[in-house]
């Protein structure tokens, strides 16, 4: 056990954790933020994706010690008002079914859109192939990412 401080969504969380504990469980059980999901625990499904210093990481295989001193952003912190272009596009076309995978899907898509503001279908395949959706919402995910790109472009142009 070690005392650590995590910076999650710009808030400080002093925690006592086994440094080996995956960031996922520290976020969920210790910080009590339940938006980030457990799907496989072995970096296969993407349900646990969070941003670590702006990079999309699978928190189920990221040791909590690696997050110390870095900025963690979870789905709860992606935007204040559920209004990131990706969130908006997701709402506009009702992407989620059960919704369980979508914290991870949205966090992956947000990084994609930052890196590639105008992604091609191939870019979407490359960035999103690590996220499983058992309900099969993939067609809508693709459509929503293109839509979010448009929204983002307009916002930039102002």
């Amino acid at each position, binding site marked *: 056990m070690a005392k650590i401080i995590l910076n999650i969504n710009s808030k400080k969380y002093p925690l006592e954790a086994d440094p080996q504990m995956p960031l996922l469980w520290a976020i969920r*059980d210790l910080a009590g933020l339940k938006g980030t999901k457990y799907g496989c625990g072995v970096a296969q499904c993407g349900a646990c994706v969070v941003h670590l210093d702006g990079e999309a990481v699978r928190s189920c295989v990221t040791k909590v010690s690696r997050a110390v001193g870095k900025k963690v952003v979870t789905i709860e912190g992606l935007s204040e008002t559920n209004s990131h272009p990706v969130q908006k596009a997701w709402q506009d076309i009702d992407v989620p079914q059960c919704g369980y995978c979508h914290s991870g899907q949205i966090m992956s898509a947000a990084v994609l859109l930052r890196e590639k503001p105008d992604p091609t279908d191939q870019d979407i395949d490359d960035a999103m192939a690590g996220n499983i959706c058992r309900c*099969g919402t993939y067609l809508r995910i693709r459509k929503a990412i293109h839509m979010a790109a448009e929204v983002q472009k307009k916002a930039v142009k102002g």
Partner: protein
Amino acid sequence: MENQTLSRRNFLKSSAVTGTVFSLGFYWPNDAKSAKIIQATEADNFGVEMNSWVHIDTSGKVTIFDHRAEMGQGSYQAVPQIVAEELEVNLSEINVVFAPGDSKKYGNQVTGGSSTVRGSYKNLLKLSATAREMLIQAAATQWGVPKMECYAEGGHVMHKPSGKRKHYGELVEAASKLVAPKDVVLKKRSDYKLIGKPLRRLDTPLKTNGTAVFGLDKHIPGMLYAAVERNPRLRGKVKSFDDTGARKIVGVKNVFKVKMGVFNTYREGVAVVADSTWAAIQGKKALKVEWDDSGFEHLDTEEIYKRQAEALQTQEGLLFKTQGEPSEIIAKAAKKIDVIYETPYQYHAAMEPLNCIAHYQDDKLEIWGPIQAPEWVQDYISKEMSIPREKVIVNMTFLGGGFGRKAFMDYPHEAAVISKEIKAPVQVVWTREDDATQGPFRPGITYRCEGVISNGEIDAFKVRMAGQNNDHWRGGKKDVANRSTSEGFLKPYMDSIKNLAIMDVPFETPIPTMWWRSVYASTNGFAYESFLDELALEAGKDPLDFRRAYLKEERLQKLIDKIQEVSGWKDRKKGDGYGVAITECFASTVAQVVKVSRAPAGGVKIDKVWAVMDCGWYVNPDTIKAQIEGSVVMALGAATIHQVKFKDGMAVDNNFSTYQMPRITDIPPIEIYIMDNDADAGGVGEPGLPPFAPALTNAVFDLTGKRIRTLPFSLQAV
């Protein structure tokens, strides 16, 4: 929108503070087919508690109890959309609360068989219209005007001649004192403002910012976490265990043996209770358990299918349905088609692994979890643990997928047993590995299909299935054919094919099996619809024309017209790679056409899927489309990517690294159409699944001349 689950006790508390409410509910007498509408004042006479269904408080806010689980299929949207229509309120004024398990109040709550809408919409429409009429009556009385001069809109009652209006909230008290009218006039479909429109789902915003509370997200004060090492051979007992390693893990508090029921058998395991999920999982990994599974055969996949094939060659089977003389014709025929189709065992693989919270205290049990069948959980646990049924409270959360697996009582039962042992609330978390290997699974089934064609028509049609019967787990009779032997097969065929036999060859293994999205239609559909294609070929007929000749019903003819038109069926040339299939599932019929082509890198690729759904009366076309998209993706996985394989009595693949899933890169465009008619509502969540696999393999045959008779098959290897 609030997202919450309320126990009955908490609801009573919260309704007490809101003061006057106008509530209309259902009363479901045990012996009645349909519900009676009752008011709070009458509830006593029926000996039932009110607080069900629809409440309107003095602020005009409407609370609806959603009696079904929300696992992605859209009940959270469909139920309010129905109520808002007849009640004449805006969807935004509706607050949805998941109803706690209580079949006395809510009728059948088992979310399965695609039944949420089709099982309750008529009652819901009537209930909401009754409430609306009572509110109008209350306003008319207060104004001293004839009721027929008034109407309701947007949560208000209006008086047409004077333009006066009253908010529902102001009328709640008066309306609650009126006697509910017996017969109310429901709106015509053409007058609907909400039903039939692609309205946005109410639960979407909760699912884009992490606020939707799934079972795994629920937290109860003082809650501990548990992980359980269960017998990997699916049945049997713990012989001994060594917990030295587990107890060394920081955070681990307790280790003990647990037994949970799986219908009428039991499964043992060793539970590790800890102060975090991670510690519990670590503790579980550190356990050393010796299992006693004597009496259980350690089967391999190959052996299962070998035995099914043997049974189909040597046994006639139990009769499900027959007419004419199919066997005689087949025996005498100079030429017959006699083929075997194999379908694999499948795992549900909901993205949210199984989990459940239980809190046992003072002879009372409260449960929170992603649960499809709350009343079964109540019944089962009450019996197993000798707790009075009304003291088993089951609260439902959002489900991160269910597909049938979460309509089972084992995981809540196990959580209850653990909570009772440790005398504290506990969340039992199944790791993905537990979830993937423990079953129950969809049964793998082999079919033998025999047929004779003469003069371009089916002269004899005989199909036999050999596979596990899900009902046997629940004590179903073993000397009658599986009641689902023809599931998926369109009923009109059973009249129009003159010489026909559908049989079930009994087959058992120790592997636990159960329903999986669309149940037997998912496997039957593949066999029967592939076989029809083979018969059409033998008859020298176009596969769609061939089917059409046996499906004379007007609804089916229209469905066939539609799929023919949208897929450009008549413009295609032979060998272009088109395949069709039509199946029925939970009172809805779906036709699909799949188009495939040669992939540049070798193998075959899916270019497009067209689907036409006839589900009769429906609520939200966009939800239906989403369900079909999802069904096709799930069917694609089961047809071309994954299967549960067994070795030495254990499921082999234990995570997505080897039990691969369809991903965004695998999905073809899907074009969906919904038929409009006034027939009774059919299911929506499952019927899109069964036709996909046969439409795909029929398309592969059209393109390549290769007939796929065993699933899953690799698209790359064709």
